[in-house]
């Protein structure tokens, strides 16, 4: 495993009286996929946004320790949305120009090279997410923070998105991803951080987490999180 590109230490975040994260420490090494999983409201997105520098921690520190880059970090929001009235190519060109990148190459990397002239409002949910990933890749940022990249997608499209995630890590990127899709997480992640009620309840490799119960990952997941929580995860059995 390579050195950490992003390191969060003792991260705490509160919103008024609500503590979304409490003393969370996590590191995202280059060339790996780190998955943040947990029930709804466990703090995954908050942690991702803090790691991405989009949200300040109330306490604790986050440091970027990766290679020098014009754009150190790429970000895919949970529900990517683009200004209507523009084509896929024009949208990619906007972001590419900001990061001095090639828009055509970005679209090719995510498989949207065949629909450059399609208006963004005419893209399917999966294609919109792929365009969001293309945007996140602009400028070749060493770190990629992807918030639920496969949420709401059909199995084929979800698999395609995680194929891209794996390829990015293979290229040396540090990828941190939130997801409820445990089978895909199990397949793609090098390390899984399980969050519950704003705290890390486990952080290990998929194999090590599986060994805790001897069954598939969702059994370990269910044993780790509070049974009273409203758990919303996709598992092998309900996919």
């Amino acid at each position, binding site marked *: 495993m390579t050195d950490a590109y992003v390191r969060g230490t003792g991260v705490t975040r509160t919103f008024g009286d609500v503590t979304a994260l409490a003393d969370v420490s996590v590191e995202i090494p280059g060339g790996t996929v780190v998955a943040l999983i947990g029930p709804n409201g466990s703090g995954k997105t908050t942690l991702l946004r803090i790691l991405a520098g989009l949200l300040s921690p109330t306490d604790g520190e986050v440091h970027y320790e990766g290679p020098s880059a014009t754009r150190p970090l790429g970000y895919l929001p949970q529900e990517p*949305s683009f200004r209507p009235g*523009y084509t896929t190519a024009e949208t990619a060109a906007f972001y590419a120009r900001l990061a001095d990148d090639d828009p055509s190459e970005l679209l090719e990397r995510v498989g949207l090279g065949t629909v450059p002239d399609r208006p963004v409002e005419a893209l399917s949910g999966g294609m919109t997410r792929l365009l969001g990933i293309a945007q996140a890749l602009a400028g070749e940022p060493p770190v990629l923070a992807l918030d639920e990249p496969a949420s709401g997608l059909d199995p084929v499209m979800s698999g395609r998105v995680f194929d891209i995630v794996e390829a990015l890590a293979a290229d040396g990127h540090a990828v941190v991803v939130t997801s409820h899709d445990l089978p895909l997480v199990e397949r793609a992640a090098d390390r899984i951080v399980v969050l519950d009620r704003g705290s890390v309840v486990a952080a290990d490799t998929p194999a090590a987490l599986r060994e805790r119960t001897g069954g598939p990952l969702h059994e370990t997941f269910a044993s780790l999180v509070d049974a009273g929580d409203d758990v919303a995860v996709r598992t092998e059995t309900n996919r």
Partner: protein
Amino acid sequence: MTGRLDAFWTVFAREIRGAARNRTYALLALALGLVVFGLAGTGNGPSSGYVPTVVDVLLVVEVVVPAVAFAVGYRSITDDAVRGTLDVLATYPLPPWVYVAGVYAGRAVALLSVVLVPLSILGVVVAASAAPDTMVFATHRGVDSPLLFVRFVTLTAAFALTALAIAVAVSALADSRRRAILLALVGLLIVVVGADVTVLRAITGGLVDVDVDLGTILGLSPSSAYRGLVFETVLYVAFAERGEFVSVPVAAAGLLGWSVSALLVATLAVRGRRA
């Protein structure tokens, strides 16, 4: 590595492209044209000259131009915030002030197109229909001139840009489209009447010495500053008897100050969203 100028042009070009494809701007220009031509025609200004035409349309332009500016700018940044685009842009080498400058400049081109085209056409109509002495290119007292109308159009453009800056600031402060509408209405009221009312309250409340400060303090309200500049540099030029309505340097500085302050607020608001 991309520079700030490249980043500015990228944002600016996106705004221009969006405006060029938005037919609403053409409708706004048409509506503004109908209003100013209707007023000018009713007052018979075009057949009398440039200054009479300015007198005919000034009062309504004072209200309609800020309204158009707010229509152009009130969602300029809110839409990017609601879509999550501001979060995404925060990961790019795009400082908040460059983003705000690009958005403002792009919308400014759209706004000036909407405002200046009808007014310029009105000027051409005056030139074609007014008495022969309006073709005299001179600005000495008592003579009507196309240059006076050019001054009016220029001042109107400056007023429109000030109102747009305030609209962009309002847009940066709003966290939803509904709130953007409400804040835009508040901002429009401040520009059109609120600042004037504050000035009057300051005068009637004895906070300022009318004899000494009236011309100065009027210059601090955007609409009073605009009105005062039009009176001082367009209308009073053509009349023998005149009185100082507003301090021209203060009024000019007032419009500039409102614009710069508003864009600063917008920049701080965009930066604040990143924390």
